[in-house]
């Protein structure tokens, strides 16, 4: 995106390692909304420690794909295995997977009736059965990490968009997830807030978190992603390392998309 981030790219990425262990395995996955075929034959293997950026035109099924991974949407055919647990309609499996997979939304979706601290401690206390004291310590640790410990006792409505999104990230991290999903985390934010959220995500990547991120922040993709996936009309059209992806896109659709998104 900017020269600064592009220049920093190789160094930042070189510190991150990818293991051979498989975190997410999606094979021949299909999904329909009624008659509408949203996802067609998706095959995707994500190893632990991978940072994957998913991009593509609006309506191509990016959100649907990552929402299938924690069962916010149900797939109709094919197989999704997360952390060794297959996603079926078995509620126990779904619960297991949701505990391991954190998610950040475009519109933050903080709980407005709870304070920032309560937002962060709620799931650890009620889902993981962590004692309140311990949950609060963990929450403060992550709030410090996203650099807003001083807002802990405010309500979400009193924070800026960027701060809210960082709280949302901290809230997910409090569950100590092994995989993080991001659905356009910066696209509802003003430019100066985008940076603070991206910085948070970059430091998360540097710590080795497995991340799947739907975003159009190409600077971010260059800097942290080890793989960029391009989707169109419910299919994975192309995937490659960021350098290759941006310099030598193979399909015409990717070229067209990149020229549109990088053009202005």
């Amino acid at each position: 995106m900017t020269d600064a981030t592009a220049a920093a790219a190789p160094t930042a990425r070189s510190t991150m390692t990818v293991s051979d262990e498989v975190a997410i395995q999606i094979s021949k996955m299909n999904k329909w909304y009624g008659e509408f075929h949203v996802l067609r034959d998706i095959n995707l293997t994500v190893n632990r420690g991978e940072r994957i950026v998913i991009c593509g035109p609006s309506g191509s099924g990016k959100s649907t794909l990552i929402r299938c991974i924690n069962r916010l949407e149900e797939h109709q055919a094919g197989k999704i295995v997360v952390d060794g647990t297959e996603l079926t309609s078995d509620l126990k499996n779904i619960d297991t997977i949701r505990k391991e997979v954190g998610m950040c939304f475009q519109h933050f979706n903080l709980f407005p009736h709870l304070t920032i601290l309560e937002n962060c401690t709620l799931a650890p206390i009620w889902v993981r059965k962590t004692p309140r004291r311990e949950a609060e310590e963990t929450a403060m640790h992550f709030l410090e990490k996203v650099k807003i410990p001083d807002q802990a006792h405010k309500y979400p409505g009193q924070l800026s968009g960027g701060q809210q999104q960082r709280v949302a990230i901290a809230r997910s991290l409090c569950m100590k997830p092994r995989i993080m999903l991001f659905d356009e985390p910066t696209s509802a934010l003003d430019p100066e807030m985008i940076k603070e959220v991206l910085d948070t995500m970059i430091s998360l990547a540097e710590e080795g978190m497995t991340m799947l991120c739907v975003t159009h922040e190409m600077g971010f993709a260059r800097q942290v992603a080890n793989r960029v996936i391009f989707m169109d009309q419910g299919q994975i059209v192309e995937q490659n390392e960021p350098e290759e992806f941006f310099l030598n896109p193979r399909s015409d659709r990717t070229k067209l998309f990149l020229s549109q998104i990088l053009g202005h």
Partner: protein
Amino acid sequence: MSDLHSNTVAFVAGSQIPPSPPPAKDRGAVKWLRENMFSSVANGILTVIAALVIITAVPAILQWAFIDAVWSAGSLSECREIAAANGVEGAFACWAVINERFNQFLFGFYPNELLWRPVLAFVLMFVAMAPVLFRSLPKPMLWFSAAYPFLAYFLIWGGLGLEPVESSKIGGFLLALIIGVTGIVASLPFGVLLALGRKSDLFFIKTICVVFIEFIRGVPLITLLFVASSVLNYFFPPGTALDLILRVVIMATLFSSAYMAEVIRGGLAALPQGQYEAADSLGLDYWKSMRLIILPQALKISIPGIVNTFIGLFKDTTLVSVIGLLDPVGMITPIRADSNWNGLVWEFYVFVALFFFAFCFCMSRYSMYLEKKLKTDNH
């Protein structure tokens, strides 16, 4: 700054002139009147008419209710004599009847020597409600709240060593409060369950809830009360007949929980989908996400509607007079039939209306306080 300006700008004032006060027509009372009372010709005419009505009506009402009123007398004719002796001409309020029948209005035909029991129950009701209404009070008080319904039942109906009192003796405001408060307290959880059931994915549960809500809402409360007073007995084996008050309480609860369900469903629908998704993605199961995330917000949104339903139910308790229960309105008939007081009308209804108004007004105020307290944005 001013140096710079003196070089570039032709004239700059050397000192700041304090602002003058706005002209009289834009100030204080005059401004308020202009804006609120006489903002247009039509508004001005309405203001004048309203003022005339108030000027004529209020003194007349005060005259009737206070200045000319008779406060204690043994009968209506005695009332008239006292009024005539005071030189009153025209209508006057004979509050003496309320004075004389006060206990009946409050308790119906509850035995006089046992009146301390409902009074104690009434006082304890506030103790029981306090920790529920005001969260800052100590949590252990909620144990008393939970025990209160049994305690109140024991105090009012007796048993276990206390002299039993029959349901037919219970009336007046005591009865209105028994039906109203029980209905209000029970209809909220029922309403929540019905609203959740109606939104459920489980076909069977959903159907039951929809049918229940639509049926109960589509039927006048009076019919349900008649069902309670007559038909319901056929459904119970002989000898196990439920107490009439209990049957009425059940009907009133069912009736208002159907309304409550729809009010709460509105609150549920008003929540953004993202709240459900965030709760799901954190791994909260259905009941936890409802209890911790969805319902607190949905109920908060629904407060005006919920209180509206409460107030409606409380006033609807007067309908039980139709099936012969002696609630405050039902109490009026036997008192008017008494030859001593035959001929009085207004005093009864004014008194009963004031009682209901006081309670409903408190509920409305409390709901405004609660809404303000639960507001978590921009403060």
